[in-house]
């Protein structure tokens, strides 16, 4: 298992620390605090919300997301379980049918593979089949850049985006992390909430107040621009912002669209950015082939074809498992330099 909360030599640690606006304000809350606050506020707000997962009570979570929760809410709201991802998701589904709003923690999102059948066949299909809502949220640390190796670096979103009945969100900032988690918990459907563990304590920024949510299904322009668009989410937002900043120095004006919700996609926002810039790089940390970039590129090809001034480019992780050793991981995962150079190609087209 990965050493929680560290990962000192990650590919773009040096970039993301100290460059983005957020990380320049060390007194502001971190991304992970956004997650913790959302959970706490929703637990306080709605007695039907409870948390369930491995080592989330006494231990307060492998990444300490639930710090202090067991004391505050007690063992009927913060449930430690055996190591049984499938049963945890199944039990959450049963509880949801009884009117509860369980929030499942996967210790690492990689272990969600053990709950695959319960998610895609049980939870996702119930409302369609017999009309009962299944308001469960499944959250957990995803992503690489921490030398987690092949089993602690997964970005599994594309699999789940192909499952009717699921919603999938992937916040890139503390604000979105908090606001989207609140929306996920209040949503009447199963929502997969992918938090990026590399961002946990590396980025800081303001958080929304207790009554503010970030709506599911709405993308956000994180940086407006006129010359080209990067359509991305999660860790990719930070790579894109860094690349855009570097290119701004050269006089290029790059827009960064943060999808935030991966299912359902905000098609209007995607088409709108293409209409503004005519050139698109789709960027994600998950493997290229079969990744969400294909879906986005296809939507653009279908709905904004006439407006395209260049082929839609994709940049993503290589089609390999995510290797452990630093030089290998750096090779496989996207980095700012590669984003910048892809954007240059696009801008020159």
């Amino acid at each position, binding site marked *: 298992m990965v050493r929680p909360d560290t990962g000192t030599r990650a590919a773009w640690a040096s970039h993301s620390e100290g460059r983005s606006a957020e990380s320049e304000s060390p007194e502001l809350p971190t991304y992970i605090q956004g997650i913790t606050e959302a959970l706490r506020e929703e637990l306080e707000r709605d007695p039907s919300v*409870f948390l369930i997962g491995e080592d989330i009570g006494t231990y307060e979570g492998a990444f300490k997301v639930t710090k202090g929760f067991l004391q505050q809410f007690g063992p*009927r709201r913060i*449930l430690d*379980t*055996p190591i*049984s991802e*499938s*049963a*945890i*998701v*199944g*039990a*959450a*589904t*049963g*509880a*949801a*049918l*009884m*009117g*509860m709003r*369980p929030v499942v923690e996967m210790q690492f999102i990689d272990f969600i593979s053990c709950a695959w*059948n*319960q998610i895609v*066949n*049980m939870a996702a*299909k*119930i*409302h*369609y*089949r*017999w*009309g*009962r*809502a*299944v*308001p469960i949220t499944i959250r957990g640390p995803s992503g690489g850049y921490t030398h987690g190796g092949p089993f602690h670096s997964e970005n599994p979103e594309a699999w789940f985006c192909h499952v*009717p*009945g699921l*919603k999938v969100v992937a916040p890139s900032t503390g604000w979105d992390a908090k606001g989207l988690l609140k929306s996920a918990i209040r949503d*009447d*459907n199963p929502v997969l909430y992918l938090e990026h563990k590399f961002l946990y304590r590396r980025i800081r920024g303001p958080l929304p107040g207790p009554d503010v949510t970030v709506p599911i299904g709405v993308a956000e322009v994180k940086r407006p621009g006129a010359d080209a668009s990067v359509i991305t989410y999660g860790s990719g937002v930070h790579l894109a912002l860094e690349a855009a900043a570097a290119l701004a120095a050269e006089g290029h004006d790059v827009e960064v669209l943060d999808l935030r919700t991966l299912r359902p996609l905000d098609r209007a926002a995607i088409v709108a950015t293409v209409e503004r810039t005519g050139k698109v790089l789709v960027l994600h940390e998950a493997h290229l082939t079969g990744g969400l970039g294909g879906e986005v590129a296809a939507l653009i090809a279908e709905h904004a074809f006439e407006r395209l001034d260049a082929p839609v480019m994709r940049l993503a992780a290589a089609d390999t498992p995510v290797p452990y050793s630093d030089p290998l991981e750096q090779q496989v995962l996207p980095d700012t330099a590669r984003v910048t150079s892809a954007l240059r190609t696009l801008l020159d087209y």
Partner: protein
Amino acid sequence: MRSVRTKSPPLATKAVKPALRGLTRPQLHELHYLMLLNRAFDDRISALYRQGKISGGAFGSRGQEACSVGSAYALEEHDVVGPMIRNSGVILTRGLPIRKFFANYLGRATSPTGGRDGNTHLGDLSLGIVAPISHLSSLIPVLAGVALTFKLRGEKRVAITWIGDGGSSVGDFHEGLNLASVMKLPFVLVLENNQYAYSTPTSMQCAASKFSDKAAGYGIRGVTVDGNDVLAVHHAVKDAANRARSGDGPTLIEAVTMRMKGHAEHDDAGYVPTALLAEWAKRDPIERFRRLLRSRRLLTEEEDRATEDRVAREIEKAVMEALSDPFPDGPTALDGVYAERSEDRGPA
């Protein structure tokens, strides 16, 4: 919940005599009626299938009626059940209108799934029914979660589901039962050991001599009962449910029985030795219960015939109505992937 047929009195109730195992004569008659209904329903499904009226699979539970009816009848109104494909008797005992049940097999708009799923794959929380999925054992964690909710909310309700000898080999059997056991949930699991899983004999599913031997590994109670004795099944489930309700945790009940037909209608079960079937035929749960009631003078020939007639009438009426029910409109297929209306939720 008006129509749920599960109100049996506490075990200790002074029953109007004559009674059997704490059950009153009207209750015994109801069990008899429900088993006959279960069989008649299955037989009619089989006929509809042979007539080409059912486009999916058609599953029967001939020989296993005591398992479904006996266990469902032991529950309280607010308990929650998760029936599997061979538990049509559970669904009928919970009181789903027979017409709606036929309609589900027939893919009609009037069924609990509106034609989106078939056979026993139906849920209706007003009757405390959670729908299964095909993937065996997946319902066990879900019903454990139902039981967990009862425990968290301090409700004296029980969650129960069923599993086959074959389904017990799937991972979720273990994860779900284990979760229920370590959390001491008000949960009952009935394992219907009907000797076969499709064509596969029990020996390929489990090397233990009894499935109930698995209970010890979970630190819970395990019992093996004669699955063709409706009163034995009823008693075992009642007892397990009582223990669950009073905080004693889950019970694994193995009901030993026999699948008297093929896996589904397409399967002639040629792999089952005929001698085995012949032997089990003698233990038919319905005939056996009937003989018992008759011998104890708890059922007159007239009452018996009247029940048969009632069942035949009800089945005939329901199937005719269901057959005249409309198919769903194609375009509605695109609705309802996501919950949007708040009626989808609510206390259960």
